[in-house]
């Protein structure tokens, strides 16, 4: 092989020795270039929009009309903007949880289930403790929602730490279990007797609902999200715990030799991760839907994975990307008026993620002139 490449960089092409001589340029991989440029997420979004435009056009629609409809629906009116923010709240909370776990390479893709059980636990408070004062019912719902989400996170952490089971599979299986449990309670024991046989819990009272801003649907859960982001920033920046997470993330073997208990950290981050998703679930039922019903989450837990990645686990980035993806969800709903499925936003999310992970690597390749 070529002796020209530096020790930390290698040739891309396996048939390189020969082609390197013939071809004046070569591609070089430099693993040390880990920081991708700031504009790479923006470029990913643009390329994803272009790719999906091809599919939309192939299906006989005009991509311009569709994207215009989506954008106007999400950001065009003051109603659209508050709706976008309403959707951004669960994305921010779940995305933050995923980011915390990802710091030490724990892949939590179970935010969807953790959110669902959080919503269920909050609803349990309204059913088993009716008639509490506003303060106590909200506080109790918050505690129950967080605890349920954290418990669901723990059920992913324990198999990983004590049985060596990949957390991706466990957390995903638990999503399906949570959704089936939700179906059971809304069709069964918690079904509203006055609900015209419609699956869902009874409506929450005013005391069990989170305060909203004016006449909009924007609720105080936004404050929960922002406070959580601020705490995350301070914890990561200034505490020993944050430092240990950074150390494990950078080099788990070195961290273990340094005496850091990795299993304990995995359990802690999964408790936090699940707890935050649980808060998101509590905020959804108490702030938005005011009752427990099927489809409480249109895939917030999955979208939040991309939110966390696009933000590169950065607190400020999390706020920006969750608003952006909140807009994508609202935009997805608004294309339903022209007869398209809202899952068009899911397709866009997948495409963005493809370009994002590709972009993260592509900039590590450099075109070099052969000497």
């Amino acid at each position, binding site marked *: 092989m070529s002796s020209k490449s530096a020790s930390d960089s290698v040739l891309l092409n396996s048939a390189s020795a020969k082609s390197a001589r013939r071809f004046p340029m070569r591609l070089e991989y430099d693993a040390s270039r880990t920081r991708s440029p700031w504009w790479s997420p923006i470029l990913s979004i643009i390329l994803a929009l272009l790719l999906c435009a091809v599919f939309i056009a192939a*299906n006989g629609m005009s991509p311009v009309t569709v994207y215009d409809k989506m954008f106007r629906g999400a950001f065009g009116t003051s109603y659209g903007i508050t709706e976008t923010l309403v959707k951004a709240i669960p994305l921010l909370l779940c995305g933050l949880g995923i980011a915390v776990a990802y710091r030490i390479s724990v892949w939590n893709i179970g935010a969807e289930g953790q959110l669902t059980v959080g919503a269920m636990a909050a609803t349990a408070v309204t059913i088993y403790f009716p008639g509490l004062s506003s303060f106590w019912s909200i506080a109790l719902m918050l505690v129950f929602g967080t605890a349920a989400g954290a418990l669901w996170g723990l059920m992913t952490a324990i198999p990983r730490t004590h049985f060596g089971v990949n957390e991706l599979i466990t957390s*995903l299986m638990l999503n399906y279990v949570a959704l089936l449990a939700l179906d059971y309670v809304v069709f069964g024991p918690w079904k509203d007797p006055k609900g015209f046989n419609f699956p869902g819990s009874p409506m929450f009272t005013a005391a069990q609902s989170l305060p909203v801003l004016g006449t909009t649907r924007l609720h105080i859960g936004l404050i929960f999200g922002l406070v959580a982001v601020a705490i995350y920033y301070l914890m990561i920046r200034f505490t020993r715990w944050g430092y240990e997470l950074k150390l494990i993330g950078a080099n788990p073997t070195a961290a273990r030799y340094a005496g850091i208990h990795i299993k304990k950290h995995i359990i802690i981050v999964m408790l936090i991760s699940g707890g935050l998703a649980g808060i998101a679930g509590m905020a959804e039922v108490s702030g938005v839907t005011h009752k427990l019903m099927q489809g409480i989450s249109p895939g917030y837990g999955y979208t939040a994975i991309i939110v966390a990645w696009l933000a590169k686990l950065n607190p400020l980035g999390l706020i920006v990307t969750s608003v952006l993806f909140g807009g994508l969800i609202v935009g997805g709903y608004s294309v339903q008026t022209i007869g398209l499925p809202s899952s068009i936003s899911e397709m866009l999310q*997948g495409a963005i993620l493809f370009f994002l992970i590709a972009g993260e*690597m592509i900039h590590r390749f450099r075109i070099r002139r052969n000497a």
Partner: protein
Amino acid sequence: MDFTTQLLIAAISAGTPLLLATLGGILNERAGIIQLGAEGLMLMGAVTTCIVYIRSENLLLALLAAIAVTAVLGLVHAFLCVTLRANQTMSGLAMTLFGSGLSAYLGKSISGIPLPGTSPKLDLGWVKGIPVVGDIFGRMDGLTWFSLLLVLALHLLIHRTSWGLHLRAVGDSPATADVMGIRVQLIRYSYITAGTALIGLAGADMVLAYAPTWNEGLTAGRGWIAVGLVIFARWNPLRALFCAYFFGALDSLGFRIQLLGSIVPPYFLKMIPYVVTILVLMYLGYRNRNKPSGTPESLGTPYIREQRF
């Protein structure tokens, strides 16, 4: 027919898509690349089959289209994971999201329309006469027979041929394989593409033999169960056969208990496959805690020439 025979028939019918997807996953992971996109790939395979079959009324064309579409997605995964060395977990998740979104979008126009036919049954007159065995084998359709042959073929390929040796070498130690003159990148590309096409065929089987119309998200997590089954089967095609049928049985057992008038609500019965997956993986993890698990040694780590690990 007694209960057991009925359960066996149902287990095979529900287990076949799981088997095909698991075999596809095994091919991917034997080459050292994690494949978490099974759910999205199955959905893409299913929706392509439905669209082409309804439009052209030609089963073979529909199957080929499903294979072609998922093979293209496989090439994307291979390009990201092998050439660009991107994060394999994230690429798989992107595949699942993109696949479920795109399949829902493309399938909107044919949602609920029944397919013109099902997977053809093989006419085995002489087998049908045998009790029990005849009941089971006489009912199997073409894709089920194909999956059985595939198990045998892949078992022989992986464990008895030099191609299989190369495949295992690439999954276990790509650097060594490279030194031995095996073309690591070519092998990885080929097996990823072939494996994802098989997962697509699993989706096609779901609509042809199991649920005869397209519905948004019709796989309901079976792709993810297949990801678990790859581990459960310890990357071995023969074990995959038993594991897939076992889960097929669990899947249909819930439905059958319901028919028998069980007092347990159906939602809990539907949880069985998911809960059992977690419990079985925990048991395997516990039992094999000090033993090699059969995982391809370099699973998940991209291979870079001239770089020491």
